[in-house]
């Protein structure tokens, strides 16, 4: 099966794949799974810091896509954009449940999930400072930064994922980088 990558072609193709899936096409289900599942899993893992929970979230997000497919309106939303939001919301639900059963100070604020994995990966002082600074960025700036530097997406793909314009993504990234550079400068000046 030919699967187009990138830009408008990918968007159009996702819409067609969902329509074919809704029409009972198993190949379309396989193509959508191959294309969307790994990203949803990585996104959940990055936010939750737990592999098993990330699998549960990715599975649930995909299940919601399957259920949505028969009423999917092609052209209104890109499936990857939709799935990104659903995965994020599912992660927020998980973090909220953690807060209900844990010391509230130990768990990040659920409305604005920070990438739990980065703190754990911080091998040295510089990484720790950066991970902390990324966690403190406003949510939209952080999302754009993670998609750019950790998912290696281009600005058009980030714009589609965040449902915004390329210009807005450029602005989000520029502000995020200025903030992070300033934090690192402060940290460098202190050491």
């Amino acid at each position, binding site marked *: 099966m030919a699967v187009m990558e990138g830009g408008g072609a990918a968007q159009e193709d996702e819409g067609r794949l969902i329509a074919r899936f809704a029409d*009972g096409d198993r190949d379309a*289900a396989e193509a959508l799974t191959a294309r969307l*599942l790994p990203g949803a899993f990585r996104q959940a893992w990055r936010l939750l810091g737990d592999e098993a929970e990330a699998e549960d979230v990715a599975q649930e997000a995909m299940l919601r896509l399957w259920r949505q497919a028969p009423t999917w309106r092609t052209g209104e939303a890109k499936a990857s954009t939709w799935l990104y939001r659903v995965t994020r919301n599912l992660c927020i639900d998980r973090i909220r449940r953690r807060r209900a059963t844990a010391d509230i100070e130990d768990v990040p604020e659920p409305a604005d999930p920070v990438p739990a994995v*980065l703190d754990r*990966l911080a091998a040295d002082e510089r990484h720790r400072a950066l991970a902390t600074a990324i966690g403190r960025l406003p949510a939209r700036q952080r999302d754009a930064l993670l998609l750019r530097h950790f998912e290696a997406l281009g600005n058009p793909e980030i714009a589609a994922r965040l449902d915004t314009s390329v210009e807005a993504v450029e602005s989000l990234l520029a502000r995020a980088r200025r903030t992070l550079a300033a934090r690192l*400068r402060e940290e460098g000046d202190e050491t």
Partner: protein
Amino acid sequence: MSEDRGVERLDAVLASLAAAERRSRPTPAATLEARVLAEAMAAQRRAAPSDARSGGRPAASRTAPALAFALSLVFGFALGFAEIMPTETGGQVQAQIEDETDVAVDVVFGGDAPF
């Protein structure tokens, strides 16, 4: 530290942290993909239960041509083929068929109708 130097340092640390993240990134278990696909198939079966035996085309579009042919014979003999073709007559027949069969008869009178 100058602003340029700060940005250079940021790029270096970001790249290094992203590389550490990629190295530690887990691969989803093979069973995850299998579970997701199984749920996809189940969703398809729930959406169109009668499709499972015949390749997944929607029930209406598969059964409608056969139904149309049968109905065209019935109504053809009763009314004559010349009378069933106009829109008004088609509309009446469509309403009647919908009453009796609950089938989406716009497909019956579409381009694939066999009369």
